[in-house]
């Protein structure tokens, strides 16, 4: 990929295409991209997954350690989500201290996971007030061709589903040589997915390629799950400077459940294996 920014004519062309509900790869504006999930891509992790969304590829690993609980939640495990936007994945990513995107991405996913209730942190307590499990979710893009948040979100859920607790030593430290079959305390009924709408002119698209994403002026990410047969919005983050209007948000609320079901139909079985 090149580091050249999108030119004015290309942006105008995309705007014209979007107004005809067309895209370069043949999709319609709100069509999802091809999605593939692979498990156990890194065996030293307690759980790991690789997700390919179009040409975007993300690897996520879950590591389990033990530590002291936070004083305000003495009987709950800790969850830490972080991302490192490797310069390997895009000419846009630079080494050095994390830029805003590398901070925002894991925070948006952290909120979505936490608020959906898919993970019962209360069951990750080893000894109240003294020792709890600490769950590290680490996100690494391998190739960024757009829609990084949505690809990373799915990879995080998949890696959580894939994870097995390690054994414990007498002093309640993890014993990584002692593998168990015990899974994380995850709800069987629900898991969240994220959908980021990108906006160019007055048109909205899903799962943009890098080129489409760079032509867009605004974006909004929704975390949605299904809880007791009801759809729940768990998180939201509006990015960039351009506004969204009321009609657009209402349209998203009508569309999100359909898109959620569409992905579940595609990968639900794979996620529940």
């Amino acid at each position, binding site marked *: 990929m090149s580091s050249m920014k999108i030119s004015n004519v290309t942006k105008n062309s995309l705007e014209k295409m979007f107004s005809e509900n067309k895209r370069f790869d043949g999709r319609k504006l709100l069509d999802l991209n091809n999605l593939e999930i692979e498990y156990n891509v890194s065996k030293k992790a307690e759980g790991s997954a690789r997700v390919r969304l179009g040409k975007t590829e993300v690897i996520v690993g879950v590591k389990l350690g033990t530590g002291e609980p936070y004083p305000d939640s003495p009987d709950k495990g800790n969850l830490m989500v972080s991302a490192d936007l*490797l*310069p390997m*994945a895009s000419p846009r990513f630079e080494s050095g201290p994390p830029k805003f995107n590398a901070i925002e991405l894991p925070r948006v996913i952290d909120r979505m996971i936490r608020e959906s209730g898919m993970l019962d942190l209360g069951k990750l307590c080893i000894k109240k007030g003294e020792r709890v499990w600490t769950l*590290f979710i680490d996100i690494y893009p*391998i190739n960024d061709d757009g829609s990084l948040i949505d690809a990373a979100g799915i990879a995080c859920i998949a890696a959580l589903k894939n994870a097995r607790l390690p054994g414990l030593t007498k002093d309640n430290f993890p014993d990584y040589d002692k593998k168990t079959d015990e899974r994380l305390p995850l709800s069987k009924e629900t898991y969240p997915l994220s959908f980021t709408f990108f906006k160019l002119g007055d048109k909205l698209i899903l799962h943009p390629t890098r080129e489409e994403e760079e032509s867009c002026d605004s974006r909004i990410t929704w975390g949605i799950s299904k809880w007791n047969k009801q759809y729940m919005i768990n998180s939201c983050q509006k990015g960039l400077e351009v506004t969204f209007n009321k009609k657009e948000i209402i349209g998203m609320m009508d569309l999100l459940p359909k898109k959620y079901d569409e992905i579940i139909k595609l990968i639900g079985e794979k996620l529940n294996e």
Partner: protein
Amino acid sequence: MVKRISGRKADELREMTAKVGVIPNADGSAIFSFGETIAIAAVYGPRQLHPQHMQDPSSGILRVNYDLLSFSVSDRKRPGPSRRSREISKVTEMALKPVVDISEFPNTVVDVQIYIIQADAGTRTAGINAASMALAHAGIPMKGLISSFAIGKIDKDLIVDVDKYEEDYKEGEGATDFPIAKISGTENYTLLQLDGKMQPELVKKSLDMADKACEEIYEIQKSALKEIINGDGEK
């Protein structure tokens, strides 16, 4: 004869896999594995070098970054460079530099990014193998490929391509790790590091063993580069 837990012969490398074109965004990329150790490498450039004062008006610069993914090891590695990864980045850079000819690209940089997805000993050597393939795949002018692996010594015996179990061997003279990189088809070494106890005579013998091992690695690298181009090619 030395008994290895894995059942390998003394001069037997772990199973290797190699593929190029694994990162579409990069100018060149490759993945290389020795058994359970998996390294992925991307090359970008020649491209603009910032900051400007680092630029060399007589030649391009090769810049290597090696690191472990946090979950590639049992105890989670904190993200970001460590003293270890900085050292390995630099020795890897020097292991690759002798074959890389970027004098035609003044003031630019060729960036090599190496990440270890899964670590089971031999990460720096797997990284060098992947990086050498990625540089070739990126069309960087080179005199040859670099093939790399580690000689080990457990107690008194020399073995090829140490795995994690062997690296931790404690009995007798203990474990010695001797990573080597070599320019394909030559007797010129570009990486030599040693950690342990080894008699001078065994160092000589190690170099003989390296000839055969590097030849095998080279064949894997070569066929990966010839087989497929950008992951979508046809012969």
